[in-house]
């Protein structure tokens, strides 16, 4: 019955699940190995299926309730619209990558690529024509249906209008007749005033009636059936794709960096021949200058990078790199300081007031302070050697487009993430088991070996618990800091979408919300795994 290799596989899988903290997956794995199937099925239904059902219930509630709330930025988007927004954002990223690839392609690949894309365009244009025709026919049908709906109302309207017009005329003539009588003193002036008043009320009510019917017609006109809009959107999307393909061809041909460079080189060569043949001093001067400048430009152009637009994927990468920089800074400061605090009570006493006062300070305040301080180091960021180096086209780090905003966002993250790591490290070091210190005494370990062989290993689990909290805080702070400081990243993405206010914005903000959440979750998981790996207590191993 017992199968040792199978058991071995099972327990190693279970161990991985345990270390990574995905305890939920435990019952399915056990079920797969046929261990107490009934118990596993019960556990799965309790701890997996019910939560899944609950999540779906939440999504359903969102789908139903969302559209009921109308806001300035449109109604609250449903999950499907959010998903579409994510797909669009991702497609935008892909398009940027394709364009970049086209821009960088060199040599003979270009021709093949152009042919491929031209074929694609042909296909897309065919599809587009069909879609467009489809869309138009749908629109025509819808219009016809609408008109047929409107026609009877319109007839009623026209009739009523004509009637009202004739009656108005009659009333006016009656009024004029009465006025003549009043002038002839055969009628009282009071009579005329009453008549005008009455007639005024009558024509007012007729006007109201007409207006009511008119609104009815407008309502039908302004609410075309959904299919029309959907068909139009699909056609537009394809038109966008065609536009994009054309742009790609452009980047493969005249917009390509190699082609541009070659054009400049040709100009330079031309200038060179002219320089050799000319007899005129002024002309020679002109040609030599053109030769020099064109050669320089060609070199620059050939090394040029594609100027990418910020897509959500790039913004995510940039947020991640910023949080990693900030978190690393926090670790570099917090861990040594924490160890010193834990080792020495005087250091702890010195740092306690600083920790107590600065820990509760809001990240926004830190951001502004760092903005001022760091801004002072880079009065002219465009020309500062640090940024010139980092954003140099030959430097792979130029992908992240470092700027002062990124640096002070990272500093804000660092200063907010510092405290949990610092406090936990100090706690870990100071709560070391006295028995372990006695071992160090018996062995007569020196300061450094005591530190590295006894104190640090024994405090690692608590240090990592602190680092885990720090990273969570840092990620949360970063998004706010980016929104406020306009440092590229997910925070800025959200802020830009909020300011932008297109029909897609609200959905995009919710997309960003999920991206931030999911990345935060995975960062936390990574820290949990690290924490488990350095823990030596029994709970860590299966």
């Amino acid at each position: 019955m017992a199968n040792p290799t199978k058991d071995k596989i099972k327990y190693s899988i279970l161990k991985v699940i345990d270390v990574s903290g995905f305890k939920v997956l435990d019952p399915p794995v056990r079920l797969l190995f046929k261990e107490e199937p009934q118990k596993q099925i019960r556990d799965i239904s309790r701890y997996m299926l019910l939560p899944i059902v609950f999540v779906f219930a939440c999504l359903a509630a969102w789908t139903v309730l969302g559209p009921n709330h109308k806001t300035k930025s449109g109604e609250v988007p449903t999950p499907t619209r959010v998903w579409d927004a994510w797909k669009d954002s991702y497609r935008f990223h892909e398009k940027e990558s394709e364009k970049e690839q086209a821009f960088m392609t060199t040599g003979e690949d270009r021709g093949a690529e152009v042919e491929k894309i031209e074929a694609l365009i042909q296909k897309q244009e065919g599809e587009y024509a069909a879609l467009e025709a489809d869309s138009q026919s749908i629109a025509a049908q819808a219009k016809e249906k609408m008109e047929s709906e409107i026609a009877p109302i319109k007839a009623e309207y026209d009739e009523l209008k004509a009637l009202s017009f004739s009656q108005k005329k009659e009333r006016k003539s009656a009024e004029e007749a009465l006025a003549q009588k009043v002038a002839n003193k055969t009628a009282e002036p009071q009579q005329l005033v009453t008549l005008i008043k009455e007639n005024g009320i009558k024509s007012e009510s007729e006007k109201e009636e007409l207006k009511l019917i008119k609104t009815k017609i407008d309502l039908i006109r302004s609410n075309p059936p959904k299919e029309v809009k959907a068909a139009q959107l699909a056609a537009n999307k394809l038109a966008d794709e065609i536009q994009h393909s054309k742009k790609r061809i452009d980047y493969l041909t005249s917009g390509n960096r190699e082609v541009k460079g070659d054009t400049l080189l040709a100009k330079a060569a031309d200038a060179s021949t002219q320089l050799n043949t000319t007899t005129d001093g002024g002309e020679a001067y002109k040609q030599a200058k053109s030769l020099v400048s064109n050669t320089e430009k060609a070199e620059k152009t050939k090394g040029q990078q594609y100027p990418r637009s910020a897509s959500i994927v790039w913004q995510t990468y940039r947020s991640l790199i910023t949080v990693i920089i900030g978190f690393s800074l926090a670790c570099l400061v917090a861990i040594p300081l924490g160890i010193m605090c834990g080792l020495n009570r005087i250091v702890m006493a010195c740092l306690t007031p600083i920790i107590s006062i600065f820990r509760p300070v809001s990240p926004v305040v830190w951001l502004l302070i760092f903005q001022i301080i760091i801004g002072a180091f880079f009065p002219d960021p465009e020309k500062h050697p640090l940024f010139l180096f980092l954003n140099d086209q030959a430097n792979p780090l130029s992908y992240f487009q470092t700027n002062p905003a990124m640096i002070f966002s990272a500093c804000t993250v660092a200063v907010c993430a510092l405290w949990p790591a610092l406090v936990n490290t100090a706690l870990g070091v100071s709560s070391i088991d006295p028995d372990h210190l006695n071992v160090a005494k018996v062995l007569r370990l020196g300061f450094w070996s005591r530190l590295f062989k006894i104190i640090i290993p024994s405090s690692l689990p608590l240090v990592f618990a602190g680092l885990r909290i720090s990273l969570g805080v840092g990620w949360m702070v970063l998004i706010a800091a980016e929104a406020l400081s306009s440092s590229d990243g997910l925070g800025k993405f959200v802020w830009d979408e909020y300011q932008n206010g297109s029909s897609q914005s609200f959905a995009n903000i919710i997309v960003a919300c999920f991206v931030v959440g999911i990345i935060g979750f995975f960062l936390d998981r990574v820290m949990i795994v690290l924490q488990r790996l350095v823990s030596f207590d029994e709970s860590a191993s299966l």
Partner: protein
Amino acid sequence: MSVELKDVSVGFGTPSNRYEVLKDVNLKVEENEFVSIIGFSGSGKSTLMNLLAGLVFPDKGEVTFKGEKVKAAGPKLGIMFQNYSLLPWLTTYENIELAAAQVFKDLSKKELTEHVDRYIEMVSLTPARDRKPHELSGGMRQRASLARTLSLQPEILILDEPLSALDALTRGDLQEEILNIWEAERKTVVMVTNDVDEAVLMSNRIVPLTMGPSATLDTPFAVDIEYPRNRHTLNDHPEYKRLKTEITTYLINLNQEDKKGSSMDSYSMPDVMPKNFTPISGRPTLRNKFTQPH
């Protein structure tokens, strides 16, 4: 003369609120002697061991080792802690290696490995060489701790209740192991215990520690039983029986004296007698209703 305690007193707290743990303790341990210190829990046995190991220093009197005052703990005074004190993030081998590498700095890597493995072998832990402490049983941990202390090649072995946390069977095993090692290496050993059998079985001399506070060492009992001692035949040895009775009686008296001396009022117990559940007749099954005898 290996280790000597001269009029040693140790206490804790401020002068106004002082708790004397040990008072005027005198002890002389000869070279190669196996001395057991026996006493009740909380009487200051561990403090006494820490004094010998140089982890605690006397307020009065002095502790000398080979005629020199003990100023700090060190590998020569090999103490084995009551609760193992193995470093939980290191394997058995690494724990011992850390200790041995610190003391024998000029050993090459290969020699060090051999040295460590020899001690692991000595306490029969070779199968658990690469396991971490939390994967070991209590007895195995205690062995690892013993191997670590032995690997320092201390001049005196200070055992602080080495076996008190173990079950009876493992305990017997380890007692034998320690005795064998002692007989093979003939080191000076000072062991603290609260088990009379263990003390009589293992040591040359048993020194009782009186009840705390202000505990002190009383007149020692010499154990004149030749080694090697066999736990199975020892039970019938007249000297063994005599000593056991004598020490047990001594300890009981000590305990009673302490209770009398304490100011705690004794509680009067209610006058109750146990019921007799023996059935008067019939089969003794549970189905029978228990009845009071007439």
